């Protein structure tokens, strides 16, 4: 398949816990995942299998121990496991978006600016970026009075909507979604589903963890099962 936007080859991730006597915790071994533009792949597998670890590796948040993570960036192929920090930042700014389960709140910054920030970082004029942010927050049923407030005091569902708006506003070619609808009510779940479908229609490659099977079935084209490492290989490692 030549149309991939994101793929892993033999991805290996083991945690070494130096404070626990150097215990080694193998999580991913030989993961080969390939995601095409316009496709949504849902990660499957039991709790603890390593779905979130894989997601964090794909974003460069966890360092891979072996294998490669390839992404199409500016028309070229970049190996995220070998890219230096500056190149990873550039890839994140332009190509690779991430909606995490929880918003890492920045004190004192209004929700509107949190959503507009990645747009400004990509070169959009601040006023235009704020206008887009406002439209997207409104679509996610965030009343205008909340736009000017920092999300620190918001409910989980409100924070998640700020998070979604921030992740979807730039239109990244590759989008990672970690439980994007976990704390949303039905109406906002529908908005999130629509946003994911629109991103796919615009050509985004989407990888997601969806515990809500209804949402998963509405957006995912296929499942990719992350196999838990058997205990035997754990002790052998």
């Amino acid at each position, binding site marked *: 398949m030549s149309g991939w936007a994101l793929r892993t080859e033999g991805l290996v991730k083991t945690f070494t816990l*130096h*404070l626990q006597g150097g215990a080694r915790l193998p999580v991913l071994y030989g993961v080969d995942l390939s995601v095409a533009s316009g496709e949504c792949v849902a990660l499957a597998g039991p709790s603890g299998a390593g779905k979130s670890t894989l997601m964090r590796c794909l974003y460069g948040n966890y*360092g891979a121990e072996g294998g490669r993570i390839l992404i199409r960036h500016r028309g070229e192929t970049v190996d995220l496991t070998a890219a230096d920090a*500056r190149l990873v930042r550039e890839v994140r700014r332009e190509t690779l978006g991430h909606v995490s389960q929880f918003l890492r709140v*920045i004190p004192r910054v209004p929700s509107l600016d949190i959503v507009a920030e990645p747009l400004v970082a990509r070169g959009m004029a601040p006023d235009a970026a704020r206008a887009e942010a406002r439209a997207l927050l409104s679509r996610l049923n965030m009343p205008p009075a909340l736009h000017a407030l920092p999300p620190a005091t918001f409910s989980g569902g409100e924070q998640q909507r700020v998070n979604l708006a921030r992740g979807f506003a730039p239109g990244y070619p590759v989008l990672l979604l970690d439980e994007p609808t976990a704390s949303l009510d039905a109406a906002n779940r529908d908005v999130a589903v629509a946003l994911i479908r629109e991103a796919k229609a615009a050509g985004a490659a989407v990888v997601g963890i969806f515990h809500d099977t209804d949402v998963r079935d509405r957006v995912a084209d296929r499942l990719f099962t992350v196999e838990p490492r058997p205990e035997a290989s754990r002790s052998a490692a």
Partner: protein
Amino acid sequence: MSDAPILEASGLHLRFGSVAALDEVALRVWPGEVVAILGESGSGKTSLLRVLSGTVAPDAGEVFYRDAAGVLVPVHVAGEAALRRLARTEWGFVHQNPRDGLRLGVSAGGNVGERLMAVGARHYGGIRAAAAEWLRRVEIDPARMDDLPRDFSGGMQQRLQIARTLVTRPRLVFMDEPTGGLDVSVQARLLDLIRALVADLGLAVLLVTHDIAVARLLAHRLVVMRRGRVVEHGLTDRVLDDPQHEYTQLLVSSVLAA
């Protein structure tokens, strides 16, 4: 991505008697990048900042600064006059103690305005207007312009120091524990202010801190130091969320959750 580093150091060594303050340290900073040097007291992080900014000469190694004209300046060979010129124009310093960076007997407006005069501004009205604008940007009421900073609170003094430093639009700013001595609520406000200004102005910043939360909020990239050596470096969230070195794992696991 093709642009050259603004600061580049390699092979740095520095000893204080039998103690290695810097042991084979190399570091590069690119324009627009915030790099935090993280470590505990005695790790060598402040020594590194002093060597990089030309304040202390290393026993071995080189530091190069690429100036606005693209000329590579060897920081420890360039001479005092060249360093003074850089400190006045292209570099800025934010000290932990605002009293080290301010003139307490000069008005708040004067503290900001004299930096502009040092780089050639002469129009009194223009200087006063720029000073008022910068006081506003750091959230100090311009009505306090003629007051002396010795009567300001610690947080206000620190914000004034930042205005004084940034008014000349330096290209590279050295910060040593800029929120060090402040109350937590004052810290949050200051961090947010620094974060916004650095992004707006596209500054390169070298920040020394022992505070992981400060590093996470401000820095794009982290350099973790211990006993004079760099034990780990990389993207801030990668280093803090998936620390590889034993010492970084200890640092990250020792943070008290709020």
